[in-house]
């Protein structure tokens, strides 16, 4: 017997969803037959605001584009400006940037641990990992002065040098986190509830993944080794030693495993960077911000964020304000077309579970 079809709305306000968006579901019994995403609840018009602000003022608002992980935005903005202007960045600044980006990646993954397990009903995990994330935020506070928004990586280098004793503090935190990761494994990955919920759910087709625009951990969870840090190396990633984990499967489980391995790589990268960091200048001084003009031109730069490739398309018309800055976050594809397709045939209970595993982040979809 065919079951009656009903319409269900999840969101915009929903405790399980990763942000403020709405998914309209057509369900038969418990199975989704059609999904439609509605976004726009967080639109701030960043790209319009940047047209009104000069190059340095625009820099202070870009980090607000993606809330869980602001640093790739700063990195992208700075690199795009540097590419158009041809500004040199000191070697030390590059190392500090890589360290900041990797710390941000760890923080995002720790938050993801909480979200992913919370949407499966495992609330202890969130208490642990979000609590441990505070240690990374403490490092950021020490380094930049801000817990969440740092405004640290700016055109020409970074805003401050490492404070005294930062290296020891960071290494201590990394040691602590590495120990904790084994506890997380016991709590999450050896948990049969999580295994049964995650295996075989939300499968992405490997042959279609690249064409569909999947990036980041979901793509590596399909068994395709793709990482901007290797493919289009920026800063000093080509001088560092790290692996890009990829696993066959394409379901929530492999995506979770990929993140589990990546967080270890990031810890390793932070240690390497702190070890190899050269001395010298950390900032190539920009002129007076109100007079600072950038020659006409355009650039497309990419950064590997914790959720995938983050791209900025920037156009300058030679003035003291950006002509156009267009942000492409990984969630722009993951959260709309990919999600709509993955949800078909899944259970209603798995919606927020799948959304968390894709790293959907509405603020960067609509900006």
């Amino acid at each position, binding site marked *: 017997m065919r079951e009656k079809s009903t319409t269900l709305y999840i969101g915009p306000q929903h405790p399980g969803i990763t942000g403020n968006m709405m998914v309209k579901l057509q369900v038969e019994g418990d199975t989704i037959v059609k999904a439609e995403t509605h976004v726009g609840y967080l639109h701030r018009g960043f790209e319009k*605001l940047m047209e009104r602000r000069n190059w340095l003022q625009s820099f202070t608002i870009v980090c607000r584009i993606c809330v869980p992980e602001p640093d790739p935005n700063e990195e992208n903005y700075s690199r795009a400006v540097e590419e158009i202007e041809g500004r040199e960045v000191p070697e030390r600044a590059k190392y500090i940037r890589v360290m900041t980006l990797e710390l941000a990646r760890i923080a995002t993954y720790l938050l993801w641990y909480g979200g992913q397990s919370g949407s499966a009903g495992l609330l202890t995990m969130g208490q642990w990992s979000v609590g441990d994330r505070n240690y990374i935020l403490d490092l950021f506070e020490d380094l930049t002065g801000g817990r969440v928004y740092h405004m640290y990586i700016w055109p020409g280098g970074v805003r401050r040098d490492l404070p005294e004793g930062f290296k020891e503090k960071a290494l201590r935190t990394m040691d602590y986190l590495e120990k904790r990761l084994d506890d997380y494994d016991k709590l999450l990955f050896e948990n049969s509830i999580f295994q049964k919920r995650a295996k075989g759910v939300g499968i992405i087709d490997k042959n279609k993944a690249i064409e*569909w625009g999947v990036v980041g951990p979901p793509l590596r969870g399909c068994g395709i080794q793709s990482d901007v840090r290797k493919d289009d190396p920026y800063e000093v990633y080509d001088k560092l030693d790290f692996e890009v984990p990829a696993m066959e499967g394409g379901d929530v489980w492999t995506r979770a495993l990929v993140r589990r391995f990546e967080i270890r790589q990031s810890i390793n990268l932070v240690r390497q960077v702190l070890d190899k960091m050269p001395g010298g200048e950390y900032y190539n001084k920009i002129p007076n911000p109100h007079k600072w003009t950038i020659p006409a031109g355009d650039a497309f730069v990419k950064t590997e964020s914790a959720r995938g490739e983050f791209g900025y398309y920037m156009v300058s018309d030679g003035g003291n304000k950006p002509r156009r800055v267009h942000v492409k976050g990984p969630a722009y594809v993951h959260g*709309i077309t990919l999600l709509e397709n993955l949800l078909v045939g899944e259970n209603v209970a798995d919606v927020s579970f799948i959304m968390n595993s894709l790293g959907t982040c509405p603020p960067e979809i609509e900006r």
Partner: protein
Amino acid sequence: MSENNLHNEQKLLNLLEKKFILKGGSVRRERRVEVKVEPKEIVPVLLYAKENSGYTAFTHMSCVDWIEDGEFEVVYILWHPEEKINFFVKTRVSRDNGTLPNIDFIWRQANTYEREIREMFGIQFEGLVGREEFILEDWEHMPPMRRDFDTAKFVEKTYFYRPGREDAKDVREYVQERTDEELPDFAKKYSRD
């Protein structure tokens, strides 16, 4: 950078120059190739790049308002997963009643980009299916990303300012007047250097 290193980048450009009428094309730098075409050439060029040259990933699509020329510039950015090259296809359409071909049959995620550009700039895409409203709701004014849309004036008309905001604007202008100084005093005071 020697010529040999850009071999892969040049290859695509040579192929395209033989096959299509390009308005311009160049290798921008390592991993960046750019061509300029007429709007009617968009679909053949993109299809050729995807099917024959291996540019299977659709990375980005953007639009820039060149109000001085009365034109929009639309940029399609593709990615070659093996050769690791970004390929830019640029085209220009009129600001007044520009229409572009719809490409969501090549990459379906292009549908999202096209819906956003339609809403934010007012460019129409032939045969684009999808909800009219994407981000904005009940928007009755000019598409907001056009350069002649003044957001500050709109805000003044529509929303409330908290008392005190007027002063804040004055400070901005005041700071701008003193552009001869290297660094404003208040910034020096709080700088750690």
